[in-house]
């Protein structure tokens, strides 16, 4: 036997190879932090932008938490095939430096119901930037404005490199910065003892190669901070150490998990938080917080039957529907302490249903922040594993704070994990999340109510039901659209158009698609999209492709009209006619002679008891857009004829009509470009009702009041609601008589 140790180099190489293989094997199936075996599509890619930050929060002369001094080590990977000769960074806080910033020019100093307080400015300065152990880049820093011609905007910098970064190369930069938080405005800032520290450090932009997100040329995707935009960054690992005044001991929360707490014995306390595989980091302090921790345990909140149900509906093995446990920390204001259970219930419902429908939330932790009164501008915002909510002092039974908690948790999926570009394609996170939020609220809480409140209290609820997602129709469909959904955030007509298109219009669009496809197929689409694009940056076309791939059909007609277009969708049931055949009067040739029929139904020669009705249903396409809508015709004897679109091809919608009475079927075509269609058919009973979209699937139909025709008089409904209104008018006027 030959001595195996004769060739140590070969042995070493073999050992090295074994080690490589083991690590590769681990990459194929991986292990999660809670020891669950991860599948290939659940494994995060290599971090691109990792930050290790040491920051100190200092109080101003009025004891307000305003000033930040930080040192940042950024480790950045050039994951592209391009050689990169400059870096670009976001300095978001400079949007609040003065009124000349692009943000201020676009917002006019107002956002999300808040008005900026002049004098309470915010800013960030990069004091020093150098390559670790290398070139000092400080003097090369230059402000740029890639989106407009505003040379006064200082929210983006470029830093040319002496030595370009090659493909696959990793560089490290040491950055020293100072910053001042504004008074709470546009998601970040201080108020009294509270601070929400968001978008607070120099953050590198995203390098996109040619072809990535359908880009033609490679380059930096690093937009200025606009009034109607949010954020976009690469995934990485965050290790942040915060030193805060001792007054905030145990009153701090952040992205990720707290690893250490140290009392420095000098009036400050230092905390360390870490989180891997995220693309942002935010934190908060407030002496008024009550901090409550609870653990979401899947087997307490998700039943086996629910898992089995969704396993079946999604056509996936049961272990793919598994939801992992996690710690949930609630940082709530003292005066809202009676709402602790409501907050946790909302969060647990969100974790449960997002997990069942789309995929497991992969992090161990979630922190929910309740901003104080006058700090609401920091509420309703999402950061990875860290969300800000907000509630009122005595909320009623309407779904607030539930809606905001579910919505902000939902952003962990749409934006946090599926990291679309919030600047350029805001619908992919806001709209997707609005759609998902409505589904969770509908499932967990049912229809919403409309409260009537005064002096901080809900007095009663109006007799109005607001089912999800229909509550988004009124504002969305009240007029013509100025912009397509697919518009860069800062290029919408105004903030109102941005909000309408990014949130409710996308909700209605996706809800219509869901009703058209069926809930199960849509769930498979969304799940596939989530799993395919988690930890990545998808573009809108990637979602369109996912829909086509999962459904096996081409939905270009849908997305071209309703995401890329502005046409209104409105079908009208114009007219119904149902005429009994026979009984025509006049002279008719019969048996070689002329026989006279003198009156309808009084055939002199024969008594014909069978009735046949010739029916005509006229449907008009009032709007520019088209959609294969279903129809339902009801006869006097109770029989129903359904008209369902079975095929859309070559500019024609093929309908199949089915008579429920005898199962008779026939086809009819509607040429798409035609503005109207008359359905002609005969029945043995009179046609009494015709209805377009009887199941209200097409939420985008701008006007549902013209979708039906029947013989109703409307008197009963008019009496019902006018007398209801009369009661209120009488009561109000009687109250006025108080003055007489």
């Amino acid at each position, binding site marked *: 036997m030959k001595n195996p140790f004769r060739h140590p180099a070969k042995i070493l190489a073999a050992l090295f190879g074994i080690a490589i293989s083991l690590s590769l094997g681990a990459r194929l199936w991986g292990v999660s932090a809670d020891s669950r075996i991860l599948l290939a599509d659940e494994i995060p890619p290599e971090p691109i932008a990792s930050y290790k930050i040491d920051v100190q929060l200092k109080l101003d002369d009025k004891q307000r938490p305003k000033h930040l001094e930080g040192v940042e080590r950024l480790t950045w990977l050039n994951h592209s095939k391009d050689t990169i000769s400059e870096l670009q960074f976001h300095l978001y806080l400079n949007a609040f430096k003065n009124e000349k910033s692009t943000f201020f020019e676009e917002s006019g100093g107002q956002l999300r119901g808040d008005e900026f307080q002049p004098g309470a400015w915010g800013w960030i300065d990069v004091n020093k930037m150098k390559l670790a152990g290398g070139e000092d880049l400080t003097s090369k820093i230059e402000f740029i404005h890639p989106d407009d011609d505003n040379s006064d905007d200082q929210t983006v910098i470029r830093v040319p490199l002496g030595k370009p970064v090659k493909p696959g190369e990793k560089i490290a930069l040491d950055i020293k910065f100072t910053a001042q938080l504004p008074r709470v405005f546009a998601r970040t800032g201080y108020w009294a003892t509270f601070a929400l520290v968001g978008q607070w450090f120099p953050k590198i932009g995203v390098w996109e190669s040619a072809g990535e997100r359908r880009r033609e040329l490679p380059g930096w995707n690093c937009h200025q901070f606009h009034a109607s935009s949010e954020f976009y960054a690469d995934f990485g690992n965050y290790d942040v150490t915060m030193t805060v005044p001792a007054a905030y001991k145990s009153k701090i929360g952040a992205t990720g998990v707290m690893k250490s707490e140290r009392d420095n014995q000098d009036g400050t306390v230092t905390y360390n938080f870490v989180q891997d595989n995220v693309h942002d980091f935010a934190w908060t302090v407030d002496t008024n917080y009550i901090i409550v921790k609870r653990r979401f345990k899947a087997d307490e909140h998700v039943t086996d039957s629910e898992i089995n149900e969704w396993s079946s509906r999604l056509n996936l093995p049961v272990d793919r529907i598994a939801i992992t446990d996690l710690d949930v920390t609630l940082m709530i204001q003292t005066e809202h302490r009676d709402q602790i259970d409501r907050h946790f219930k909302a969060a647990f419902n969100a974790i449960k249903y997002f997990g069942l429908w789309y995929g497991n939330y992969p992090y161990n932790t979630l922190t929910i922040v309740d901003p104080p009164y006058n700090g609401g501008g920091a509420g309703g915002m999402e950061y990875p594993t860290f969300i800000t909510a907000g509630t009122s002092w005595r909320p009623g039974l309407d779904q607030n704070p539930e809606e905001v908690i579910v919505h902000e948790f939902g952003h962990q999926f749409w934006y946090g994990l599926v990291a679309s570009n919030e600047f350029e394609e805001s619908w992919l996170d806001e709209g997707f999340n609005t759609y998902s939020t409505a589904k969770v609220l509908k499932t967990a809480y049912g229809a919403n109510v409309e409260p009537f409140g005064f002096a901080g209290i809900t007095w009663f609820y109006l007799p109005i039901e607001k089912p999800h997602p229909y509550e988004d129709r009124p504002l969305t469909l009240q007029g013509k659209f100025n912009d397509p959904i697919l518009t860069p955030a800062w290029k919408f007509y105004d903030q109102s158009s941005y909000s309408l298109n990014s949130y409710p219009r996308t909700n209605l669009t996706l809800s219509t698609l869901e009703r058209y496809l069926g809930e199960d197929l849509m769930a498979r689409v969304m799940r596939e999209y989530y799993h395919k694009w988690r930890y990545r940056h998808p573009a809108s076309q990637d979602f369109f492709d996912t829909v086509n791939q999962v459904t096996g059909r081409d939905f270009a007609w849908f997305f071209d009209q309703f995401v890329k277009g502005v046409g209104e969708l409105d079908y009208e049931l114009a007219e119904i006619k149902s005429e009994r055949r026979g009984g025509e009067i006049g002279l008719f040739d019969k048996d070689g002679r002329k026989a006279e029929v003198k009156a309808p139904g009084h055939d002199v020669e024969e008594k014909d008891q069978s009735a046949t009705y010739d029916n005509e249903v006229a449907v008009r396409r009032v709007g520019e857009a088209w959609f294969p809508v279903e129809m339902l015709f009801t006869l006097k004897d109770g029989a129903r004829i359904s008209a369902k679109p079975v095929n859309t091809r070559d500019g024609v919608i093929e309908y199949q009509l089915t008579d429920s009475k005898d199962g008779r079927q026939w086809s009819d075509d509607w040429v798409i470009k035609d503005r109207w269609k008359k359905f002609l058919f005969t029945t043995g009973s009179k046609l009494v009702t015709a209805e377009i979209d009887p199941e209200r699937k097409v939420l985008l139909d*701008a006007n549902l009041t013209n979708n039906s025709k029947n013989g109703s008089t409307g008197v009963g409904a008019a009496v019902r609601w006018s007398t209801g209104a009369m009661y209120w008018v009488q009561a109000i006027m009687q109250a006025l008589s108080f003055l007489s």
Partner: protein
Amino acid sequence: MIISFFVGINEANRSWKMILLLLAANVLSSLPLIVPIFLLVFDTSRGTIAADSLMADKLDAVWFMDVANHKFPGATTETVALQVGGLFVVMGVCYLLLNTLLTGGVIGVFNSADGLFTMRKFWGEAGAYFWRFFRLTLISLIFYGVAVGIYALLRWPIKNAAEQASAYESVIYKRWAAMALLALLFAFINMVFDYAKIGTVARSVRGDSKGMFRETFRAFRFAFRNFFSAFGLFLIIATVGFALFIVFNALRWSVDQSSAGRVSLAILLGQIAIAGRMWTRLLFYAAEMHLYKKLAPAAAPAPVIVESRLV
């Protein structure tokens, strides 16, 4: 005070014809707003399945907003609020004037020797005192304005405190206190002018152009001299009336209006609730009339109204 309360109840109970008259006036006054609503619902729902779905307890908000969006295209919330609000203001002013007229009739009937209602007596008294009561209403607006001014002055520091607060609880309690003070001031002023009207009728003040300022002064004097009796009586009646309205209101809203029969029941209960408020109003005047005559300086003897002279 308690005796006056029960006397008032007795008088209000036997004045059911006046209650019906006041209710009829209230119903007729609401029609300018209700008829358009009826026609709107009728026009937009007839011949559609919405007519059936609207026969329901809850309003189909989807239908309602589609009607709003398409029946009034281009209308903004502001223009609609302005138009509806404007109509409400006009209707309110007309109703106020009508009530000023009717109040004269009510107090006149209660002031008469037999206290019994007849149409001639009622309308005769109403006409006789309308102008004076109208002037009293105008004078009362000055005092209501002062009350609002006091409230605004209180709200100023509360608003400043709210802008510096980081907890809503401290702010809301202050706001409630200010609103409670405003409500009490309004109640007191309302009571004073009730007595001003009662005093006008009780003393049969006629012909003096400055009489209403003097009556206002006398009423304030009466109210301050007999503060606990007068304001106590007022608050007791207000509480009873409010409780009555809450009960009938709750009954009305408990009816599921998803059928014609139930809609009719809801209409009936609603009108009973409104009639209850009319009854409360009569209770106010009857009880206050009794208290006034018991405590005020000697008034003119109650007139014997011979109806033949009113032809």
